[in-house]
């Protein structure tokens, strides 16, 4: 098993996207199937960007097993008051200044769920959010 940990800062768009790209490169290098690699990389990217856009800071932890990939994002931030609403495609609370950069489509969490074989989310208002995605091979 390999574990990778990435620290992510809120509103740091200069480095945003590197987590997804690194996950993709590593899984590709160790021979994971293209579709598994794609799903894990997309989930990691969306988790990273959720922290960048919505939280003060956080961490994305990626654990690679022979059987698949587990990605966990934990942040310190405002939290999500209504998770069911946040999971709806198109619903977004992203600030307007990120729209012009192509973010805030309200597709981040739905994309993570679509890419995942196992998906969990929990959040506490005023504290932060926890998201877990597992992408399985075969």
């Amino acid at each position, binding site marked *: 098993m390999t574990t990778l940990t990435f620290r992510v800062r809120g509103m740091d768009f200069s480095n945003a996207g590197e987590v997804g790209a690194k996950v*993709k490169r590593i899984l590709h290098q160790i021979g994971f199937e293209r579709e598994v690699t*794609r799903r894990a990389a997309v989930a990691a990217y969306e988790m990273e960007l959720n922290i960048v856009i919505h939280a003060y800071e956080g961490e994305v932890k990626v654990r690679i097993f022979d059987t698949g990939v587990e990605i966990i994002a934990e942040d310190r931030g405002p939290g999500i008051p209504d998770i069911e609403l946040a999971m709806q495609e198109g619903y977004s609370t992203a600030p307007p200044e990120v729209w012009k950069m192509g973010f805030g489509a309200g597709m981040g969490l739905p994309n993570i769920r679509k890419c995942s074989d196992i998906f969990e989310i929990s959040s506490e208002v005023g504290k932060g959010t926890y998201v877990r995605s597992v992408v399985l091979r075969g």
Partner: protein
Amino acid sequence: MDLLSIINILDAEAIAAPPRPGLVQIGSVFVGDLMSDVLSHAGPDTLIVTALCTSQLVRVAEVVDAPAVCFVQNKMPQQSVLELARSKGIVIIVTPYCAYQSSALLYRAGLHSAVRPGGYNGGYLEI
């Protein structure tokens, strides 16, 4: 369809390109400016057509293995965006046409939309 043909169809200029763009194969087209939409729909054979000339667009293209990005209306990215694209092996072309015209030209040339109902592995919506 090879990228060289697409460059000709769009009267485009390749500003970050491999030595032989004819070897890059494109099978579908995604048109849009939202990162999550690109992640939902684009794949390893997709040309991304967009007005958003940012480094984020290049990073998203890398995540989904999209081989090429087309910036519309002669929008020129910053040098740092081009350098990032070159380092990732992603082709950047620039067309004078807008997104609507580019879509029409590529559709007429026989290319599918990358948007598939039911997600990346779903079928195409024919029109």
